[in-house]
């Protein structure tokens, strides 16, 4: 008769607190929730815009309340954190070659930061002109 009695360990709801790598992973993924909430706020602004100038101005006015400004600052911080973690992971999903040499990971990461800078600058110019 077999004496086997394999023991299965349960992970439990707090598995991600037991290892700092896993904790950072959950924070990284959690930051995307903040971005989702921000996107809904922005989408609501677009919806108000579709209802006319008065509705949109009401939304803009609401957004300039201190509470909403704090919300936007927090969203910006989380978005930057999310971007940094995303950019650092990006080379793993890319297998780009130039001739017989693989493009170094640092080029891909730098490229992402470069693209972010160009798009941000373009956005800024659009707003200011």
């Amino acid at each position, binding site marked *: 008769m077999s004496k*086997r*009695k*394999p*023991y299965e*360990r349960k992970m439990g709801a707090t598995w991600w607190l037991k290892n700092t790598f*896993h904790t950072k992973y959950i924070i990284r993924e959690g930051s995307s929730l903040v971005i989702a909430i921000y996107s809904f706020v922005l989408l609501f602004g677009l919806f108000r815009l579709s209802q006319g100038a008065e509705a949109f101005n009401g939304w803009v006015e609401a957004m300039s309340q201190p509470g909403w400004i704090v919300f936007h600052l927090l969203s910006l911080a989380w978005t930057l954190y999310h971007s940094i973690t995303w950019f650092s*992971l990006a080379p793993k999903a890319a297998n780009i070659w130039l001739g*017989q040499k693989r493009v170094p990971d640092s080029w891909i990461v730098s490229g992402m930061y470069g693209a972010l800078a160009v798009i941000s600058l373009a956005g800024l110019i659009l707003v200011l002109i």
Partner: protein
Amino acid sequence: MTDSIKIDILRYRPESDNEPVWQSYDVPFTNEMSLLEALAYIKDELDPTLSYRWSCRMAICGSCGMMVNGVPKLGCKTFLRDYKNGMKVEALANFPIERDLVVDMSDFIEKLEAIKPYIINDNPRALEDGCHTQSPKQMAQYKQFSMCINCGLCYAACPQYGLDKSFTGPAALALLHRYNQDSRDAGKAERMKIVNAEEGAWGCTFVGYCSKVCPKDVDPAAAIQLGKVDSAKDYVIAMFKPGE
């Protein structure tokens, strides 16, 4: 005077224990001593009932995977000098404990077999055609993924596998990628069915810890993300081929 180090080991004896229990051992410390050697000392000098797996003692065989202070490690590649405050050793996470530090890896082995880890080619080169040639670039596409020693550390590091055992997992998907990238292979279409499945590449949420803990510097996380890229291409191409 010989310094000693305290090693806590999670014991599990199926014939007498209903659940694992911690047991403490004091092992003489030397600067060069590996955890595997410490376990041998415990078994030879302190407690012959301790069970653990080992073979090569030099990070080739992949037998001595275990959790050290909650991190998946090879016993032979872990040194007491890095744990002067003591270490807590337990069987590799996410696998059922068979006895003490021995786990049941049969699920992992079945997954390795399932991904068709061999060169598939219906029209192999004839002997008179001479040997296969591969450029350094062609070889670089798969070489690092072929260095896996099947130790299972990446499975112990992967919460997705821990939460859902149907996930194909890091080492198997990395090995799959290794054969898909080999210029001598023609079996990609067969293996893409495994990559495209819910429990294939898409079961991965890119935690990335698998690549961090790999003792052979394989990058399973990269293999899986590249698998997702392939899978997405497959999906788009299929949209333009409605007949198939």
